[in-house]
């Protein structure tokens, strides 16, 4: 008995040894550490989402920065949009988000509430971050309750993307200040003449409904709540569903089938509402020519548009706030950076960068001309507040709107569902 016990103990020791060895093996690959080293060099983690062109451009700008600030090293982390936020959520909960990262308006309050975002005002006061020369007041997009928690890198606005060939063939034209009635009449003509739908499903897009509400003196959000009533939304979705049934809006089943391609580039419909800086995808996907058209209005003048932004934010717990601020300042102001980035993240936010970059390709020129036209028309308003939970509500709006389109949910029930999901999202 005694010997067998000994062996048991030895077995356990062996097992422990094996595990320890395994851990050691793993640990040899470890060479992390985000902090400074002996010679005063500081390493910052910088994370963003986006496709390959953005990543390659950002890497070039990082190289420029490191040349100018040899004591600061930037460690890039990048992935696609969904993976980025999934990862960010865990890292933020675990107290280990990147020092600097790409951010969007819809996430500001969410992470501000959890204390993840640094108020960059103090760094601006200390002279490490320049808050001058932002165009069209976009700097305000990064402000929440008097704190500057995001620095815009670009500006974009909702737009109507149209199939230029289809519009021409049907003999209809998109004009500045056209009304919703005129817009739907134009779609009707397209449907009659070309036998395709007019739109791909406008009524599931939260940001478009926001514009419609703004045209009518409301907005999608107040600072803490939804800015419309259940009846408003029921009406919006009832009208939408009517247009699906009449064929003015494309069959949602077909739209689903061609995904991930857009219904517009698949030729199922002649127009689609989206952010203007997303419009590059249509040329890449579709056979026709595409262009940006004005948002329809209610009163013949107000489109309800505003400039949204991608921005850069910093982690409140970073060990190197000064270097983070210097990095952000360089990235948003340096003209060379503007030349490299172009309009990938929206029209460049500062005058230094905007003046430095001259768009050469048709798509960038189109986007620039569009935003200039919108700005000239004087329709740009103050941005709608984006309370914590905006990202969840946007997804719910798209999903529930899709159920309405397929006739699976009655508009009134759908509106009720959205209100209850919104309540949960605000609380979360």
């Amino acid at each position, binding site marked *: 008995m005694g*010997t*067998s016990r*000994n*062996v*048991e103990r*030895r*077995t356990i020791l*062996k*097992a422990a040894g*094996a*595990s320890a060895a*395994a*851990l050691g*093996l*793993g*640990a040899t*690959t*470890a*060479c*992390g*550490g985000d902090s400074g080293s002996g010679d005063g060099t500081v390493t910052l*983690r910088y*994370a963003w989402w*986006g*496709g*390959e*062109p*953005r*990543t*390659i451009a950002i*890497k070039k700008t990082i190289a420029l920065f490191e040349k100018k600030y040899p004591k600061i090293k930037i*460690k*890039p*982390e*990048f*992935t*696609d*949009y*969904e*993976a980025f936020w*999934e*990862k960010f959520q*865990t*890292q933020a*909960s*675990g*107290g*280990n988000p*990147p020092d600097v990262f790409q951010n969007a308006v819809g996430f500001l309050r969410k992470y501000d509430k959890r204390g993840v975002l640094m108020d960059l005002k103090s760094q601006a006061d200390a002279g490490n971050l320049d808050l001058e020369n932002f165009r069209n007041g976009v700097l305000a997009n990064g402000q929440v309750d008097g704190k500057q928690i995001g620095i815009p890198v670009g500006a974009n606005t909702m737009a109507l993307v149209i199939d230029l060939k289809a519009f021409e063939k049907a003999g209809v034209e998109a004009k500045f200040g056209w009304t919703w009635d005129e817009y739907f009449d134009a779609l009707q003509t397209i449907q009659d003449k070309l036998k395709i739908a007019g739109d791909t499903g406008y009524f599931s897009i939260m940001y478009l409904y926001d514009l419609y509400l703004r045209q009518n003196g409301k907005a999608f959000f107040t600072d803490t709540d939804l800015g419309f009533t259940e009846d408003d939304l029921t009406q919006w979705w009832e009208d939408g569903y009517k247009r699906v049934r009449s064929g003015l809006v494309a069959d949602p089943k077909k739209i689903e089938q*061609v995904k*991930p*391609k857009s219904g517009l580039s*698949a030729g199922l419909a002649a127009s689609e509402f989206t952010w203007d*800086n*997303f419009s*590059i*995808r249509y040329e*890449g*996907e579709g056979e026709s020519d595409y262009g940006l058209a004005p948002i329809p209005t209610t009163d013949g003048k107000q489109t309800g548009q505003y400039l949204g932004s991608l921005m850069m934010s910093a982690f409140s717990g970073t060990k190197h706030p000064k270097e983070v601020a210097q990095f952000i300042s360089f990235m948003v102001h340096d003209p060379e950076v503007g030349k490299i980035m172009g309009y990938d993240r929206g029209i460049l936010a500062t005058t230094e960068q905007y003046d430095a970059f001259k768009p050469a390709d048709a798509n960038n020129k189109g986007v620039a001309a569009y935003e200039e036209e919108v700005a000239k028309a004087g329709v740009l308003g103050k941005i709608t507040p984006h309370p914590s939970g905006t990202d969840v509500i946007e997804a719910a709006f798209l999903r529930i709107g899709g159920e309405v389109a397929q006739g699976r949910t009655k508009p009134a029930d759908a509106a009720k569902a959205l209100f209850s999901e919104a309540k949960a999202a605000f609380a979360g």
Partner: protein
Amino acid sequence: MTSATSPALHTANERRRTGSIAWHVGALALLAVVLYPVIWVVGASFKPSKDIIASLDLLPTKPVWANFSGLADGISGISISSFFWNSLMYAVLAVVGVVLSSSLTAYAFAKIRFAGRNLLFTLMIGTLLLPYHVLLIPQYVLFRNLELTDTLVPLVAGKFLATEAFFVFLMVQFMRGLPRELDEAAKLDGCGHLRTYWSIALPLSRPALITSAIFTFINAWNDFMGPLIYLNTPDKYTVSLGLMMFRDQEGISNYGSMIAMSLVALVPVIAFFMAFQRYLIDGMATSGLKG
């Protein structure tokens, strides 16, 4: 007698043959349905990127190599081979860890009587009921405090500590089925537990070990959440993370290279399975009988 039976036999044969033909046709039809997605992926990998989401054809009208040759350029400045190397390291370490630690634990549960064995076994099985997402953040905080994020350690440490309860359970059940007489014979020959484990239990449990190894390899190879949370430096990304980099929600996704890469990513999994599945059958048939 014979003249009476032969026509009956004839029709019976005939019936059997039509039955067999119907069976084969049915099986082939089912096979076609099951294989369709695979064939679609293979076909799509030879289509120009734009056609992949545009055309419904199963096979490309004009096959192109661009998707595969494009992989050689890497993505966003990272070579594709680094994704594969990282995945391979992760999968191999996971397999080694699971096979060693789970079998040792299983031996203890199956062959050694000790106080609290049943309670511990129940607790271990109980961990199967814990959802992954409950563990995610505490585990993350733990490894962050150990400063082990952005390494493979958080991904494989658990595998070396027999935390994969399912595989432990599988091996326990298998080892319980091994004849006791073999252990007793070993004991008479002077073997301790370690020797019995290494020379008797382990070789005889080969089918269970192989099964665990195959599943662990596939799980690690396909794991997305773990690498996503723990690995920060793109040079350390695994294949599953690398695949995501071809997507671009705001611009033009590179579907061609994405599909080509997912096809290439299948190769190691299939190779691993092919290499080990014959041991699986071989082992089942002879376990406990070989000298």
